[in-house]
């Protein structure tokens, strides 16, 4: 076993893990943060996307030890005081979820996209979420949701 210390959603955590555990394993099974979903388990579908030092990664193919001393943000880290994050609310309003399994990954990919490009074109949105798959084929609503989120975040910023 090895000791892993990292910051998860603004709280420092220390856990004993097997060195070959994935970040998704540790978040879900050791920390109970089951909002992060594992779809393919091979870095192909994006459902397990989290932010590592602000950068979107697929946690199912990220060795957990790579988070040593770094900041992890999961879907649970977005809402504040029981209020949905603007991106989450946009996904609700655009009906961008069907079964919902891919949604946390899409939202985290959106967070990374909008942090880097606050005012993306539709093309840039498609590119930004190209690492995430939705098997219910709801991409149109998802792209709408990202666009709505971008607009609202810009409005909040302006206020």
């Amino acid at each position: 076993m090895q000791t892993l210390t990292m910051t998860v959603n603004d709280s420092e955590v220390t856990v004993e893990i097997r060195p070959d555990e994935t970040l998704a394993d540790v978040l879900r099974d050791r920390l109970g943060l089951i909002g992060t979903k594992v779809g393919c388990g091979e870095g192909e579908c994006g459902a397990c996307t989290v932010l590592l030092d602000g950068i979107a990664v697929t946690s199912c193919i990220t060795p957990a030890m790579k988070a040593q001393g770094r900041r992890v943000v999961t879907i649970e880290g977005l809402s504040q005081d029981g209020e949905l994050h603007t991106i989450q609310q946009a996904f609700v309003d655009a009906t961008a979820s069907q079964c919902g399994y891919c949604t946390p990954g899409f939202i985290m990919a959106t967070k990374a996209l909008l942090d880097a490009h606050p005012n993306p074109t539709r093309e840039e949105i498609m590119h930004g979420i190209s690492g995430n798959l939705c098997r219910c084929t709801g991409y149109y609503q998802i792209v709408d949701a990202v666009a709505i989120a971008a607009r609202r975040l810009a409005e909040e910023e302006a206020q």
Partner: protein
Amino acid sequence: MWDKYLFAASVDHALEVLAAHNGKAQLIAGGTDLLLQAQRGQCPATVMVDITRIPDLNRIEEHDGYIVIGAPVTHAQIAASPLIQAKAAVLSEACGHIGGPQTRNAGTLVGNVINAQPAADGAVALFTLDAELEVATEAGRRWEPITDIYRGVGACTIDACHEVVTAIRFRPLTDTCGCGYQRLARRKALTLPTVVAAAVLHVEGDAIRTARIAVGPVAPTPFRAADAEEFLAGKAPEPAMLAQAGELTAAKAKPRDSVIRGSQEYRTAMVAVLVRRALDQALEACERSE
């Protein structure tokens, strides 16, 4: 699977740990392929030596007439690098097409090469740049041409249990060079290519001075199309010549029939098409820079 996961503090430290474990320790960078290989039992090493936190290794820079890309540099960093976009566009283009954004944020160019897969976009681009890899061993450091390290599908001469690839280098392309990169795949993202073609053309006046063409995955390793390159040298950059170079490259391709990637006949035909398009694109880039 793994007993220990360590972060190397320096290249020498990584080499020491590898030597101390004598084949039981292996380097890891992005880990996007390695973790899955380990889960499938294809990676006998039990100690992982992570090189991504070695100070000074994470760099993309122009130095002594070369562009140098350090081992921990990710595809995303390369795709976004103004230096690579300006002086080796074929590589930034290739790295921008690997996997999806998340994979590109973690996976490294050196890993793309060391995995020795014929479909590795980054490696195909590096073939056209005459890239070299710096290999550090306990005995010292050496530069190896990328074209020399392949031994077959998934096999290369570099042993990640005993050696450390620290960087890749190549000559920046001059203003008289243009790049082309063409990728045929079933989807636009998150998929390996059916055929990928990369080209660098050096045009002076009315003639092609040199052409560099590489393709994958249509043989056990990416390869340079020597016949087509020789054919183009000194010729006028006419559409018929570029098409002929595509045919000459296709004649050297030996793709397998693949349920996923298509039949041998289809893929061979597509090599000719993609090489022609890559050359067209390279020529256009030459004309733009004039």
